Protein backbone atom coordinates (compact mmCIF):
# COMPACT_ATOMS: atom_id res chain seq x y z
CA UNK A 1 0.00 0.00 0.00
CA UNK A 2 1.58 3.24 -1.16
CA UNK A 3 1.51 6.09 1.26
CA UNK A 4 0.52 9.49 -0.07
CA UNK A 5 1.27 12.84 1.48
CA UNK A 6 -0.70 15.65 3.04
CA UNK A 7 -1.39 17.30 -0.32
CA UNK A 8 -3.87 14.49 -0.97
CA UNK A 9 -6.11 15.49 1.94
CA UNK A 10 -6.29 19.23 1.22
CA UNK A 11 -10.01 18.92 0.49
CA UNK A 12 -10.73 16.79 3.54
CA UNK A 13 -8.89 19.27 5.75
CA UNK A 14 -10.99 22.11 4.32
CA UNK A 15 -14.05 20.08 5.34
CA UNK A 16 -12.71 19.77 8.87
CA UNK A 17 -11.02 23.12 9.46
CA UNK A 18 -12.80 25.32 6.94
CA UNK A 19 -9.58 26.60 5.39
CA UNK A 20 -6.50 25.55 3.45
CA UNK A 21 -4.35 23.50 5.84
CA UNK A 22 -1.66 21.78 3.74
CA UNK A 23 0.72 24.63 4.53
CA UNK A 24 -0.11 24.49 8.24
CA UNK A 25 2.79 23.51 10.44
CA UNK A 26 2.34 20.35 12.47
CA UNK A 27 4.31 19.21 15.48
CA UNK A 28 4.35 15.56 16.45
CA UNK A 29 3.42 14.98 20.09
CA UNK A 30 5.64 11.90 20.21
CA UNK A 31 8.96 13.02 18.71
CA UNK A 32 8.51 16.77 18.35
CA UNK A 33 9.25 16.80 14.59
CA UNK A 34 7.76 19.84 12.91
CA UNK A 35 6.83 20.12 9.23
CA UNK A 36 4.06 21.31 6.89
CA UNK A 37 0.99 19.07 6.79
CA UNK A 38 1.69 18.57 3.05
CA UNK A 39 4.80 16.58 3.97
CA UNK A 40 3.11 14.18 6.40
CA UNK A 41 2.52 10.54 5.48
CA UNK A 42 -1.08 9.82 4.54
CA UNK A 43 -2.84 6.47 4.18
CA UNK A 44 -6.22 6.71 2.54
CA UNK A 45 -6.91 3.02 2.04
CA UNK A 46 -7.42 2.38 5.73
CA UNK A 47 -11.01 2.39 7.07
CA UNK A 48 -10.38 6.06 7.69
CA UNK A 49 -7.68 8.47 6.65
CA UNK A 50 -4.59 8.02 8.79
CA UNK A 51 -1.90 10.69 8.93
CA UNK A 52 1.48 9.73 10.35
CA UNK A 53 4.66 11.54 11.30
CA UNK A 54 7.34 11.27 8.61
CA UNK A 55 10.06 11.14 11.28
CA UNK A 56 8.83 8.61 13.86
CA UNK A 57 5.73 7.10 12.20
CA UNK A 58 3.38 7.97 15.04
CA UNK A 59 -0.27 8.51 14.21
CA UNK A 60 -0.93 12.25 14.25
CA UNK A 61 -4.44 12.54 12.87
CA UNK A 62 -7.28 10.16 12.02
CA UNK A 63 -10.38 11.09 10.05
CA UNK A 64 -13.34 8.77 9.64
CA UNK A 65 -16.18 9.76 7.34
CA UNK A 66 -19.61 8.21 7.65
CA UNK A 67 -23.12 9.37 6.89
CA UNK A 68 -21.96 12.85 6.01
CA UNK A 69 -20.09 13.39 9.29
CA UNK A 70 -16.35 13.38 9.87
CA UNK A 71 -14.93 11.92 13.07
CA UNK A 72 -11.60 13.54 13.88
CA UNK A 73 -8.81 12.47 16.24
CA UNK A 74 -5.93 14.92 16.54
CA UNK A 75 -4.44 13.58 19.77
CA UNK A 76 -1.14 12.69 18.11
CA UNK A 77 -0.40 16.34 17.43
CA UNK A 78 1.35 18.64 19.86
CA UNK A 79 0.36 21.61 17.72
CA UNK A 80 -1.08 22.62 14.39
CA UNK A 81 -0.75 26.20 13.22
CA UNK A 82 -1.53 27.91 9.95
CA UNK A 83 0.88 30.74 9.19
CA UNK A 84 0.21 30.86 5.45
CA UNK A 85 -3.15 32.38 4.71
CA UNK A 86 -2.59 32.73 0.97
CA UNK A 87 -5.68 30.82 -0.02
CA UNK A 88 -7.75 32.52 2.62
CA UNK A 89 -6.60 35.85 1.28
CA UNK A 90 -7.60 34.68 -2.17
CA UNK A 91 -11.07 33.93 -0.88
CA UNK A 92 -11.17 37.06 1.23
CA UNK A 93 -10.57 39.15 -1.88
CA UNK A 94 -13.46 37.47 -3.60
CA UNK A 95 -15.63 37.84 -0.53
CA UNK A 96 -14.79 41.53 -0.43
CA UNK A 97 -16.60 41.83 -3.74
CA UNK A 98 -19.71 40.24 -2.29
CA UNK A 99 -22.17 42.06 -0.06
CA UNK A 100 -21.45 40.96 3.46
CA UNK A 101 -23.05 41.74 6.77
CA UNK A 102 -20.94 43.41 9.43
CA UNK A 103 -20.46 41.32 12.54
CA UNK A 104 -22.71 42.63 15.26
CA UNK A 105 -21.83 43.10 18.87
CA UNK A 106 -24.32 40.32 19.53
CA UNK A 107 -22.24 38.03 17.37
CA UNK A 108 -19.09 38.99 19.19
CA UNK A 109 -20.65 38.30 22.55
CA UNK A 110 -21.68 34.92 21.33
CA UNK A 111 -18.13 34.25 20.27
CA UNK A 112 -16.88 35.26 23.68
CA UNK A 113 -19.18 32.84 25.47
CA UNK A 114 -17.75 30.09 23.29
CA UNK A 115 -14.25 30.87 24.53
CA UNK A 116 -14.73 32.01 28.09
CA UNK A 117 -11.86 33.65 29.85
CA UNK A 118 -10.21 31.02 32.05
CA UNK A 119 -9.81 33.60 34.75
CA UNK A 120 -13.34 34.95 34.61
CA UNK A 121 -14.36 33.54 37.95
CA UNK A 122 -13.05 35.66 40.83
CA UNK A 123 -12.78 32.57 42.98
CA UNK A 124 -9.93 31.47 40.73
CA UNK A 125 -6.73 33.48 40.38
CA UNK A 126 -7.75 37.09 39.95
CA UNK A 127 -6.94 38.56 36.60
CA UNK A 128 -6.88 42.20 35.47
CA UNK A 129 -8.84 41.23 32.35
CA UNK A 130 -11.59 39.49 34.27
CA UNK A 131 -14.31 41.81 33.07
CA UNK A 132 -14.88 40.91 29.41
CA UNK A 133 -17.15 43.86 28.88
CA UNK A 134 -14.35 46.33 29.54
CA UNK A 135 -11.22 44.38 28.73
CA UNK A 136 -10.74 41.62 26.18
CA UNK A 137 -10.21 38.10 27.39
CA UNK A 138 -6.59 37.00 26.85
CA UNK A 139 -7.86 34.06 24.80
CA UNK A 140 -9.76 36.28 22.44
CA UNK A 141 -6.75 38.49 21.80
CA UNK A 142 -3.49 36.52 22.11
CA UNK A 143 -1.47 39.65 21.33
CA UNK A 144 -2.46 41.09 24.68
CA UNK A 145 -1.86 38.32 27.14
CA UNK A 146 -0.74 39.97 30.32
CA UNK A 147 -2.07 37.03 32.22
CA UNK A 148 -1.28 36.08 35.80
CA UNK A 149 0.23 32.76 34.88
CA UNK A 150 2.94 34.39 32.78
CA UNK A 151 3.86 37.11 35.26
CA UNK A 152 6.25 37.02 38.19
CA UNK A 153 4.64 36.23 41.54
CA UNK A 154 5.29 39.76 42.82
CA UNK A 155 3.47 41.29 39.86
CA UNK A 156 0.64 38.79 40.29
CA UNK A 157 0.02 39.73 43.87
CA UNK A 158 0.17 43.43 43.01
CA UNK A 159 -2.33 43.03 40.20
CA UNK A 160 -4.44 40.73 42.33
CA UNK A 161 -4.47 43.21 45.20
CA UNK A 162 -5.36 46.09 42.91
CA UNK A 163 -8.11 44.08 41.30
CA UNK A 164 -9.52 42.92 44.59
CA UNK A 165 -9.58 46.47 45.90
CA UNK A 166 -11.23 47.63 42.67
CA UNK A 167 -13.85 44.92 42.95
CA UNK A 168 -14.43 45.72 46.60
CA UNK A 169 -14.75 49.39 45.76
CA UNK A 170 -17.19 48.63 42.97
CA UNK A 171 -19.23 46.30 45.14
CA UNK A 172 -19.35 48.88 47.92
CA UNK A 173 -20.37 51.63 45.51
CA UNK A 174 -17.36 53.73 46.49
CA UNK A 175 -15.89 53.79 43.02
CA UNK A 176 -17.15 56.81 41.09
CA UNK A 177 -15.91 57.22 37.58
CA UNK A 178 -13.73 54.95 35.53
CA UNK A 179 -10.27 54.51 36.93
CA UNK A 180 -7.14 53.53 35.18
CA UNK A 181 -5.56 50.32 36.32
CA UNK A 182 -1.79 50.75 36.07
CA UNK A 183 -0.21 47.35 35.88
CA UNK A 184 3.32 48.40 35.09
Amino acid at each position, binding site marked *: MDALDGNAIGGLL*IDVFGTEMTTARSTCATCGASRPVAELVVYRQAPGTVVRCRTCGSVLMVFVQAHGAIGTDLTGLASLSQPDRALSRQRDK*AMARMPTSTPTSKGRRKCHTKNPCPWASPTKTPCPWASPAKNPCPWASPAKTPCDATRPASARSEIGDLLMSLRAAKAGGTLGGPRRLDTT
Partner: protein
Amino acid sequence: MERTAVRGRLTWQVAKVTSVTPETDSVVTIELDPPDWLGHRAGQHLDVRLTADDGYTAERSYSIASAPGEPVAITVERLEGGEVSPYLTEDLRAGDELELRGPIGGYFVWEPGDGGPLMLLAGGSGVVPLRAILRHRRRSGSDVPARLLYSARTLPDVIYRGELDQDHDGSQVFFTLTRSQPPGWTGHTGRIDQALLTQAAWAAEDGPLAFICGPTSFVETAAAGLVGLGYPPERVKTERFGATGGR
Protein backbone atom coordinates in the same frame (compact mmCIF):
# COMPACT_ATOMS: atom_id res chain seq x y z
CA MET B 1 -27.46 23.21 -0.52
CA GLU B 2 -23.90 23.01 0.72
CA ARG B 3 -22.85 26.07 -1.26
CA THR B 4 -25.08 28.26 0.79
CA ALA B 5 -23.86 26.88 4.08
CA VAL B 6 -20.91 29.21 4.67
CA ARG B 7 -20.24 32.11 2.37
CA GLY B 8 -16.68 32.13 1.06
CA ARG B 9 -15.99 28.59 2.16
CA LEU B 10 -14.75 26.20 -0.50
CA THR B 11 -17.70 24.02 -1.42
CA TRP B 12 -18.81 21.65 -4.13
CA GLN B 13 -20.14 23.07 -7.37
CA VAL B 14 -21.27 21.68 -10.68
CA ALA B 15 -19.04 22.63 -13.61
CA LYS B 16 -19.81 22.23 -17.27
CA VAL B 17 -17.33 20.24 -19.32
CA THR B 18 -16.30 22.46 -22.21
CA SER B 19 -13.94 20.05 -23.96
CA VAL B 20 -12.29 16.66 -23.65
CA THR B 21 -8.98 16.36 -25.49
CA PRO B 22 -6.99 13.14 -25.76
CA GLU B 23 -3.33 13.50 -24.78
CA THR B 24 -2.23 9.86 -25.12
CA ASP B 25 -4.05 6.54 -25.50
CA SER B 26 -5.00 6.57 -21.83
CA VAL B 27 -4.88 10.24 -20.87
CA VAL B 28 -7.32 13.07 -21.56
CA THR B 29 -7.41 16.74 -20.67
CA ILE B 30 -10.82 17.93 -19.50
CA GLU B 31 -11.54 21.64 -19.68
CA LEU B 32 -14.15 22.85 -17.25
CA ASP B 33 -16.25 25.92 -16.66
CA PRO B 34 -17.06 26.10 -12.95
CA PRO B 35 -19.58 28.85 -12.19
CA ASP B 36 -17.91 29.97 -8.98
CA TRP B 37 -14.13 29.91 -9.49
CA LEU B 38 -11.87 32.30 -7.59
CA GLY B 39 -8.81 31.63 -9.71
CA HIS B 40 -6.07 29.14 -8.99
CA ARG B 41 -2.31 29.04 -8.51
CA ALA B 42 0.10 26.92 -10.52
CA GLY B 43 0.44 23.51 -8.87
CA GLN B 44 -2.92 23.39 -7.06
CA HIS B 45 -5.44 20.60 -7.50
CA LEU B 46 -9.18 20.14 -7.33
CA ASP B 47 -11.43 17.37 -6.07
CA VAL B 48 -13.92 15.64 -8.34
CA ARG B 49 -16.96 13.83 -6.91
CA LEU B 50 -19.03 11.30 -8.78
CA THR B 51 -22.40 10.27 -7.35
CA ALA B 52 -24.11 7.04 -8.36
CA ASP B 53 -27.88 6.66 -8.70
CA ASP B 54 -28.03 4.98 -5.30
CA GLY B 55 -26.23 7.89 -3.63
CA TYR B 56 -22.82 6.23 -3.42
CA THR B 57 -20.07 8.77 -3.98
CA ALA B 58 -16.41 8.57 -4.94
CA GLU B 59 -13.98 11.47 -4.71
CA ARG B 60 -10.63 11.91 -6.41
CA SER B 61 -8.08 14.70 -6.56
CA TYR B 62 -6.68 15.89 -9.89
CA SER B 63 -3.96 18.44 -10.45
CA ILE B 64 -4.99 21.52 -12.38
CA ALA B 65 -3.23 21.39 -15.73
CA SER B 66 -3.78 24.99 -16.79
CA ALA B 67 -1.94 28.10 -15.73
CA PRO B 68 -3.59 30.78 -13.60
CA GLY B 69 -5.78 32.88 -15.85
CA GLU B 70 -6.45 30.06 -18.27
CA PRO B 71 -9.68 28.05 -18.28
CA VAL B 72 -9.66 25.38 -15.57
CA ALA B 73 -8.46 22.05 -16.94
CA ILE B 74 -7.50 18.72 -15.43
CA THR B 75 -5.56 15.92 -17.04
CA VAL B 76 -6.70 12.43 -16.12
CA GLU B 77 -4.99 9.10 -16.70
CA ARG B 78 -7.14 6.01 -17.01
CA LEU B 79 -6.28 3.42 -14.39
CA GLU B 80 -7.34 -0.11 -15.34
CA GLY B 81 -10.02 -1.26 -12.93
CA GLY B 82 -10.28 2.24 -11.51
CA GLU B 83 -13.53 3.52 -10.10
CA VAL B 84 -13.48 7.09 -11.39
CA SER B 85 -10.85 7.53 -14.09
CA PRO B 86 -12.46 5.16 -16.67
CA TYR B 87 -15.61 7.28 -16.56
CA LEU B 88 -13.69 10.53 -16.89
CA THR B 89 -11.48 9.31 -19.73
CA GLU B 90 -13.98 7.26 -21.73
CA ASP B 91 -17.54 8.40 -21.03
CA LEU B 92 -17.33 12.09 -20.25
CA ARG B 93 -18.18 14.42 -23.14
CA ALA B 94 -18.24 18.16 -23.73
CA GLY B 95 -21.51 19.53 -22.37
CA ASP B 96 -21.65 17.05 -19.49
CA GLU B 97 -21.58 18.26 -15.91
CA LEU B 98 -19.01 17.37 -13.29
CA GLU B 99 -19.11 18.08 -9.57
CA LEU B 100 -15.92 19.58 -8.22
CA ARG B 101 -14.42 21.80 -5.58
CA GLY B 102 -11.24 23.77 -5.70
CA PRO B 103 -8.69 25.11 -5.97
CA ILE B 104 -7.03 23.16 -3.17
CA GLY B 105 -3.52 23.25 -1.73
CA GLY B 106 -1.05 25.96 -0.88
CA TYR B 107 2.15 23.96 -0.49
CA PHE B 108 2.90 22.55 -3.93
CA VAL B 109 2.53 25.87 -5.73
CA TRP B 110 4.88 28.20 -7.52
CA GLU B 111 4.67 31.92 -8.13
CA PRO B 112 7.19 33.86 -10.24
CA GLY B 113 8.24 35.70 -7.09
CA ASP B 114 9.36 32.41 -5.53
CA GLY B 115 12.30 32.45 -7.91
CA GLY B 116 14.40 29.49 -8.85
CA PRO B 117 16.05 28.20 -10.92
CA LEU B 118 13.24 25.71 -11.14
CA MET B 119 14.00 22.00 -11.10
CA LEU B 120 10.87 20.08 -11.96
CA LEU B 121 10.78 16.29 -11.75
CA ALA B 122 7.80 14.38 -13.09
CA GLY B 123 6.95 10.71 -12.91
CA GLY B 124 4.18 9.73 -15.36
CA SER B 125 1.08 11.87 -14.93
CA GLY B 126 2.94 13.77 -12.20
CA VAL B 127 3.85 16.10 -15.04
CA VAL B 128 0.41 17.73 -14.85
CA PRO B 129 0.99 20.30 -12.07
CA LEU B 130 4.51 20.90 -13.37
CA ARG B 131 3.08 21.73 -16.78
CA ALA B 132 0.86 24.29 -15.07
CA ILE B 133 3.98 25.77 -13.44
CA LEU B 134 5.83 25.89 -16.79
CA ARG B 135 2.86 27.54 -18.48
CA HIS B 136 2.53 30.03 -15.65
CA ARG B 137 6.23 30.82 -15.93
CA ARG B 138 5.88 31.45 -19.65
CA ARG B 139 2.65 33.43 -19.45
CA SER B 140 3.92 35.63 -16.66
CA GLY B 141 7.09 36.47 -18.60
CA SER B 142 9.28 35.11 -15.82
CA ASP B 143 12.95 34.80 -16.65
CA VAL B 144 13.57 32.17 -13.97
CA PRO B 145 15.50 29.34 -15.66
CA ALA B 146 13.62 26.05 -15.57
CA ARG B 147 14.40 22.42 -16.19
CA LEU B 148 11.92 19.57 -16.37
CA LEU B 149 13.08 15.99 -16.04
CA TYR B 150 10.18 13.80 -17.07
CA SER B 151 10.17 10.04 -16.56
CA ALA B 152 7.69 8.09 -18.68
CA ARG B 153 7.37 4.44 -19.61
CA THR B 154 7.48 4.87 -23.37
CA LEU B 155 7.47 7.79 -25.79
CA PRO B 156 3.74 7.42 -26.59
CA ASP B 157 3.07 7.68 -22.84
CA VAL B 158 4.56 11.18 -22.70
CA ILE B 159 1.79 13.67 -21.93
CA TYR B 160 1.91 17.17 -23.54
CA ARG B 161 4.72 15.96 -25.77
CA GLY B 162 4.18 18.52 -28.50
CA GLU B 163 3.97 21.38 -26.03
CA LEU B 164 7.01 20.31 -24.04
CA ASP B 165 9.09 19.81 -27.19
CA GLN B 166 8.38 23.41 -28.18
CA ASP B 167 9.08 24.89 -24.80
CA HIS B 168 12.51 26.40 -25.25
CA ASP B 169 12.15 29.91 -23.88
CA GLY B 170 14.75 29.52 -21.18
CA SER B 171 13.47 26.14 -20.12
CA GLN B 172 14.92 22.74 -20.85
CA VAL B 173 13.03 19.47 -20.96
CA PHE B 174 14.72 16.10 -20.49
CA PHE B 175 12.89 12.87 -21.02
CA THR B 176 13.86 9.49 -19.64
CA LEU B 177 12.02 6.44 -20.95
CA THR B 178 11.94 3.57 -18.48
CA ARG B 179 10.29 0.69 -20.34
CA SER B 180 11.13 0.94 -24.01
CA GLN B 181 12.67 3.43 -26.36
CA PRO B 182 11.96 4.07 -30.02
CA PRO B 183 14.72 3.36 -32.53
CA GLY B 184 17.27 6.13 -32.61
CA TRP B 185 16.27 7.46 -29.17
CA THR B 186 18.99 9.77 -27.93
CA GLY B 187 17.38 10.82 -24.67
CA HIS B 188 17.89 9.23 -21.28
CA THR B 189 16.78 5.73 -20.45
CA GLY B 190 15.87 3.98 -17.22
CA ARG B 191 14.45 5.18 -13.95
CA ILE B 192 15.64 8.34 -12.29
CA ASP B 193 18.73 7.69 -10.21
CA GLN B 194 21.58 9.62 -8.68
CA ALA B 195 23.66 9.51 -11.87
CA LEU B 196 20.85 10.95 -13.98
CA LEU B 197 20.06 13.62 -11.40
CA THR B 198 23.71 14.64 -11.26
CA GLN B 199 23.63 15.03 -15.03
CA ALA B 200 20.30 16.80 -15.45
CA ALA B 201 19.63 18.77 -12.26
CA TRP B 202 20.84 22.27 -11.42
CA ALA B 203 23.80 22.33 -9.10
CA ALA B 204 22.87 22.97 -5.49
CA GLU B 205 25.07 26.10 -5.55
CA ASP B 206 22.61 27.70 -8.00
CA GLY B 207 20.01 27.78 -5.21
CA PRO B 208 17.38 25.83 -7.13
CA LEU B 209 13.77 25.35 -6.08
CA ALA B 210 12.56 21.80 -6.82
CA PHE B 211 9.09 20.41 -7.37
CA ILE B 212 8.68 16.64 -7.61
CA CYS B 213 5.38 14.98 -8.50
CA GLY B 214 4.74 11.35 -9.28
CA PRO B 215 4.05 7.96 -7.75
CA THR B 216 5.29 7.60 -4.18
CA SER B 217 8.37 5.50 -5.01
CA PHE B 218 9.41 7.96 -7.74
CA VAL B 219 9.05 10.92 -5.41
CA GLU B 220 11.02 9.25 -2.60
CA THR B 221 13.89 8.38 -4.94
CA ALA B 222 13.98 11.76 -6.63
CA ALA B 223 13.72 13.74 -3.38
CA ALA B 224 16.45 11.71 -1.71
CA GLY B 225 18.58 12.16 -4.83
CA LEU B 226 18.23 15.94 -4.85
CA VAL B 227 18.93 16.19 -1.13
CA GLY B 228 21.96 13.98 -1.81
CA LEU B 229 23.12 16.57 -4.34
CA GLY B 230 23.00 19.19 -1.62
CA TYR B 231 19.51 20.67 -2.19
CA PRO B 232 18.12 21.95 1.13
CA PRO B 233 15.08 19.75 2.02
CA GLU B 234 12.90 22.84 2.45
CA ARG B 235 13.60 23.77 -1.19
CA VAL B 236 12.36 20.37 -2.41
CA LYS B 237 8.56 20.33 -2.61
CA THR B 238 6.93 16.96 -3.14
CA GLU B 239 3.53 15.65 -4.12
CA ARG B 240 2.79 11.93 -4.18
CA PHE B 241 -0.12 10.20 -5.82
CA GLY B 242 -1.43 6.69 -5.77
CA ALA B 243 -4.12 4.53 -7.28
CA THR B 244 -6.80 6.02 -5.02
CA GLY B 245 -7.12 9.59 -4.02
CA GLY B 246 -4.38 10.40 -6.48
CA ARG B 247 -4.31 12.44 -9.60
